[in-house]
């Protein structure tokens, strides 16, 4: 057991640093620094640069386009991209449906969809939650009825993140009304341009259009776009959720987030001293750092420990719970740190708008981010559901 980087690891670290320095788009950096919302094109520009380099899917098996990196290299990669404030990649294709397709899909599905996920040609969205099915996901009612070689799909999905950009969606649908809940669900890939699909925005607390309702009315979907067997979609769903959970521990990003909070708290004054010299504020920052170290080493144990090759198991719920709590505390500390200037509402730059927004740059998105980040303990299976999973799967209760 050791934490050393080998000479090869150090060389890789340098390679990654150089690559980011030379290739990360300057216009993206500018928008991020100003606290602007990012467009679909913004997200795709970095995606395409990484695809060209062959580094778009480090977690995938090499045969499907993965990088074949060791756990240490993957650790270095996430550290370095976070350190350089690179935007996060959209997880819906790369971290969610991609692994489902290469694990459960047909050769045709793999050949068609995987390269398009890697290239960024298809933007994916996730059709899981429904108005009546949140934590009790298996109660979902969106129904797919066979019709020749197709299914006819009817129902409503909600909380569909960035569906307004999506080319494709992966949907959980009911294909057997009489079976036990989990046993009547199938996993369908649906073209979002199909007739009968309507996407309606839901505006969240920070003012963002991030999530949507998706209505499906007599949408015709070829049965060849079902992944895995009919009525076995829950297997894919659970597999995907376990993958999703580890990704959202977000250790490297939270480390970078703490650096930013500290920078703010060194700038903001509390009396005649920096806010960071305030004993109460400082202790909150220190507590967060300590908890993040505990999360980091828990993740490292699972990535580079004895069970490293087993894939994410139910213990990834722990990473989700602690990771999401830390992300929330981080946004809370940031909002606390900016003081008065958390209040002005920054709508982003309009056309021809060249007036500088109110307050320091680092304050513009403090409150919206705090509001928005309440989602992390709710999505991907709420933290209460994660506790149920650990109780059942790990503790055997």
């Amino acid at each position, binding site marked *: 057991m050791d934490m050393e980087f080998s000479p090869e690891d150090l060389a890789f670290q340098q390679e990654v640093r150089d690559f980011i320095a030379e290739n990360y788009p300057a216009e993206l950096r500018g928008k991020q620094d100003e606290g602007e919302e990012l467009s679909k094109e913004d997200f795709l520009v970095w995606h395409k640069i990484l695809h060209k380099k062959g580094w778009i899917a480090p977690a995938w098996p090499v045969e499907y386009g993965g990088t074949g990196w060791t756990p240490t290299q993957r650790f270095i990669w996430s550290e370095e991209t976070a350190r350089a404030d690179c935007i996060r990649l959209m997880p819906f294709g790369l971290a969610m449906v991609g692994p489902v397709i290469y694990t459960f899909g047909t050769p045709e599905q793999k050949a068609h969809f995987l390269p398009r996920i890697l290239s960024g040609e298809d933007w994916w969205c996730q059709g899981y939650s429904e108005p009546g099915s949140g934590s009790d996901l298996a109660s979902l009612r969106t129904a797919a009825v066979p019709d020749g070689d197709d299914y006819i799909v009817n129902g409503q999905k909600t909380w569909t993140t960035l569906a307004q950009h999506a080319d494709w969606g992966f949907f959980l649908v009911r294909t057997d009304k009489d079976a036990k809940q989990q046993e009547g669900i199938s996993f369908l890939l649906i073209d979002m341009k199909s007739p009968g699909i309507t996407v309606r925005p839901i505006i969240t607390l920070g003012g963002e259009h991030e999530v949507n309702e998706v209505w499906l009315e007599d949408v015709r979907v070829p049965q060849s776009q079902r992944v895995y067997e009919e009525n076995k979609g829950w297997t894919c769903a659970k597999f995907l959720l376990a993958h999703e959970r580890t990704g959202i521990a977000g250790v490297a990003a939270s480390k970078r987030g703490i650096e930013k909070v500290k920078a703010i708290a060194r700038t903001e004054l509390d009396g005649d001293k920096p806010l960071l010299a305030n004993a109460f504020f400082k202790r909150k920052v220190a507590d967060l750092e300590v908890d993040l170290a505990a999360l*980091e080493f828990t993740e490292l144990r699972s990535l*580079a*420990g004895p069970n490293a090759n087993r894939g994410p198991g139910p213990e990834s719920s722990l990473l989700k719970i602690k990771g999401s709590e830390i992300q929330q505390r981080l946004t809370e500390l940031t909002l606390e740190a900016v003081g008065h200037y958390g209040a002005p509402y920054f709508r982003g730059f309009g056309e021809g708008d060249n007036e500088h927004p109110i307050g320091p740059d680092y304050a513009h998105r403090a409150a919206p981010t705090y509001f928005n980040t309440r989602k992390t303990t709710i999505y991907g299976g709420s933290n209460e559901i994660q506790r149920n999973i650990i109780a059942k799967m790990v503790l055997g209760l």
Partner: protein
Amino acid sequence: MDFTYTETQDMIRDTLARFLGDTYDFETRQKFINSDSGRDPAIWTALAQELGMLGAPFAEEHGGLGGGALENAIVMEELGKVIGIEPYLPTVVIAGGALKAVGGAQADAFIPEIIAGNAIIAFAYAEPQGRYDLANLRTTAKKDGAGYVLNGHKGVVYAAPWATHLLVTARTGGNQRDRDGVSLFLIDANLPGIVRRDYPTVDGNRASEIYFENVAIPADALLGGEGAGLPLIEQVVDEATVAVCAEATGVMQKLHEGTLEYTQQRKQFGVPIAKFQVLQHRMVDMFMEVEQARSMTIMGTLKLGLPANERMAAVSAAKAKVARGANFVGQNAIQTHGGIGITQELAIGHYFKRSTMIESQFGSADHHMDRYERIALAD
């Protein structure tokens, strides 16, 4: 980067777990901790001579197994699982750690004695006024001819009633809280002028108040440089602190497992109380603290070799997290057991007592958060 154990490390863990499983069941432990001497010396002898376990962190040329801090952590975690009172921490981790650090003739003389099980060394560092400040010393060692004369009062010296030797911190110069002027001595426990008042501790160990009254000690008892001992003391106390984190991990794991087991047997309202979601979630929170304690122990152990400031920040982060986790897991284990938890009858309460003492051993969570901030969050 690698987070797996070697085959030898797995073997140390398995061998020790099997031995302690056979020799250290709860009833047997209660019998010997309540005996006059408070221990069963045959266990220590067997650990040394049958298992070779007291050589775990020592070099092979001294007769050890060639390990280090990770091996200490493995042994301490296993001892934690049986709330073992064997003086491995002061003898092997602390005195052994100091001897390894200074090397030379003193290491050559003492380490084989430790490995053989002949030496038990208690660590006399705390003083009534000093709290967790290792430099806050009133005990003095004054130069006298070739040797020194020791005077002072050391408090709550664990394992002192059993000790053949004492590892003592004392001032050879400077003022009460100066960093300079602190020295470390390894002395015979039965020198004239050493007065002990022995007592049991709440966690099943034995300890002493020790009074040094003009104790003459030889020059070669000094470990390291005269007056320059504090960095060495800080280093071995950091090593001891993560070893205690490892022990805590074992104790916490048993508190959690015992609680899981009990809630599946205990019925109320016609069902095992483990069926109640409010208790399930509590036990999940306990589980997460145990896992994080294990992670932080590994983190602290792996960072012991870093430069002093990084080492201290890492050890303090680990101890603070583990102390809080031990508090949470211990208190909730008792709460979940209900009335039976606060009796002496079940093992759970005895694990709770040890985990509670671990919380403040070598510094409370607050103490370590202060130290962490001084290093990691300097203005």
